[in-house]
């Protein structure tokens, strides 16, 4: 069941549905269906409609459905649910929370951006101030600071401050015009790498970046931008990804084989649940030294020698 963005938002709703389709491809006994919400008031009736269809597993997409999924799961203890981007403490027996420590991947993205900027200013903004959004921005911010510390540089981050937890948000995940406006403002302030964490709104940012042309680039979010928005591949240095599709596929297959288990799944760099995508068009433009530093940092985060501190990090 998707949020208002629908299955073609090129972001987390699309990834979740892709996970279902992948599962159906892997196991021909699985049939899939989806419901799109038009407003937040649709969450409860939509979940109820799916419950009445006796689904093997119901995947709800997004943090905002936390309350609705919880009450449905309590009312129907024999049905199985998975929720993307949310977890319950204490965990529920019939819900698997799929959460992702994207601060780790955002850290790599921030380090990459700091290493690639020419103007010494990079920028990020979010769709709404939700933990699943700000966790990316925290990681990005930390990554830039880590680069500054290592290389004695002073790369500035616009749009987010981890200490005050304040920054720039467009207010939703659908209005591309706002994404364009915010991005143009950042470019005027000297930023040459933009990292939107805002679903469809990021497409507006990409339009602004492409329009501007000279030397401004982007990092895409959630999925590999060169696959989900190929028209903008030439401006994407890389993408900070979150393995929603593979996590949804895994839990769907498990449910189909009667191996469903409630609780929480946390995607990390270590289990490849989060990461940064290949550089595509930038493979030759990202210096080899920077690429090897990124690999070292990845190992450092996995073995714990580099700490990523984000208040939004999943704890379980």
């Amino acid at each position: 069941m998707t949020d208002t963005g629908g299955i073609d938002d090129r972001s987390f709703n699309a990834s979740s549905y892709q996970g279902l389709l992948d599962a159906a491809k892997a196991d021909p006994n699985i049939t899939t269906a989806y419901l799109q919400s038009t407003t937040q008031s649709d969450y409860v009736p939509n979940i109820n409609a799916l419950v009445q269809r006796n689904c093997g597993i119901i995947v709800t997409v997004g943090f905002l459905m936390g309350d609705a999924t919880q009450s449905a799961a309590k009312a129907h203890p024999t049905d199985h649910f998975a929720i993307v981007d949310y977890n319950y403490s204490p965990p529920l027996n019939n819900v698997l929370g799929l959460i992702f420590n994207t601060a780790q991947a955002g850290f790599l993205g921030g380090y990459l951006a700091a290493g690639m900027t020419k103007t010494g200013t990079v920028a990020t903004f979010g769709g709404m101030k939700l933990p699943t959004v700000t966790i990316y921005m925290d990681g990005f911010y930390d990554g830039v600071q880590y680069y500054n510390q290592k290389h004695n540089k002073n790369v500035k981050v616009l749009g987010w401050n981890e200490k005050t937890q304040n920054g720039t948000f467009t207010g939703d995940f659908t209005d591309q015009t706002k994404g364009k406006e915010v991005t143009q403002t950042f470019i005027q302030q000297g930023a040459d790498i933009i990292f939107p964490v805002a679903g469809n709104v990021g497409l507006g940012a990409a339009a602004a970046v492409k329009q501007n042309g000279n030397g401004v680039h982007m990092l895409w979010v959630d999925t590999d931008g060169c696959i989900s928005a190929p028209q903008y591949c030439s401006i994407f240095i890389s993408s900070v990804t979150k393995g929603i599709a593979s996590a949804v596929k895994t839990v769907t297959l498990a449910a189909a084989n009667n191996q469903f288990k409630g609780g929480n799944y946390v995607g990390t760099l270590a289990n490849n649940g989060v990461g940064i995508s290949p550089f595509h068009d930038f493979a030759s433009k990202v210096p080899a030294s920077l690429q090897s530093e990124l690999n070292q940092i990845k190992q450092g985060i996995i073995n714990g020698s580099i700490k990523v501190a984000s208040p939004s990090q999943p704890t379980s």
Partner: protein
Amino acid sequence: MTLLAGEPSGGQAPTGPEQPLREEGPGFRQVFVEGIVYGNSVTVTALAIVTGIVLGGLLIAFSDPHVLHRWAHLFSAPGAAFSSAWDSASSAYSAMFQGAVVNIHSVGKAFHGGSISSVFSPISETLVQATPLILASLAVMLPFRAGLFNIGATGQFIGGAFLAGWVGFGVSLPPVIHVVVAVLAGFAGGAIVGGLVGALRARTGANEVIVTIMLNYVMEYLLLYLLGTAYFRRPGRIDPISPLVQGTARLPHLFGHGLRVNAGIVVALAGAAGVAWLLKRSTFGFEFRAIGFNPRAARTAGIDIGRGYTQVFLIAGGLAGLAGACVVLGTDFTLTPQVYGTYGIDGITVALLGRGAPLGVVLAALLYAGLHAGGVQMQASTQTPVDIVTVIQAVIVLFVAAPPLIRGLYRLRARPVTSETRATPTITYVGDP
């Protein structure tokens, strides 16, 4: 006295007839209002609905890849092409009916030990959807009858939802009293926002269309800001979401916990009855309608127009606020930055469809709610995109708002405007002079 400031301020004695009014002669508003309220016969409305449903059915059929495939072989197998189109549309609509009114399969199951609540859950969902729609469209309809356009039901909804929610989670009161106080707070919250519009219109002549649209933005961002402050944010969360409304402030379920239908629908129907009484039987209502028919004549007759504008918007805002209260206290139990949904905008179309009468509004809201609730079921069981529902709704409203289209389509004659179809005699206008 300038044209814009040409109206008496609220509380002043009625001014003489020789003073210029802002609206000289029948403006666009008057013609439009009369066209909707008196120009549309029941036949036109019914035909508009039928046309919308037929067009929607064609859209469902021809957006189905399976059907399109059959139509590619139209000349070799015409029967298959038509029957597949029929199957696609009829299965979508039957799913919609099952999601909005009653599911035949669950009735059968109920006789064999199935749950009773699943028989009534479709109609319960329709009523739940209809509750805020009825109230929001009453908030549009009432000013409409006084010749005013209320585009601000969204902002007034937010005002009501916010105060009702605040009383719901921030105050502890005994059961029954708590929910009553919370609902009244919802009315007050909406009335504050609406009253502001009415007062501005009355005192400064500010165009209420502009003011209400702008106030919608003000309220949306005010809500977002307030939910971001520590006081209104749920403990343990960093995203803008309020604490849950306490159990004592929730509107009671009418038919047990299995069905979501709650006392909100009673509030909505009472609101509709109240507005009907107001318009038909009270002095207020008479004044509102008189202002709507002809502000200049109303003033000449000694009606304080400024006070009338303010009162209309106070009550309308309160009704939209009640819609917000019913959503927060009846189904959502929490405030989020998107709590207002699309009720304010849908309220405008429902008010038009309801032809500006309370009973019409209730029926139109039920139709809209049924389409919405049924749309969920339609998407769940036939995977027809829920957007088709929006198209059907839009087509219906298009035809209702433009009666000549329907009359032309079905070769109907225009309804003659007589003293019976009009409550008070005024000059018959053809258009702007």
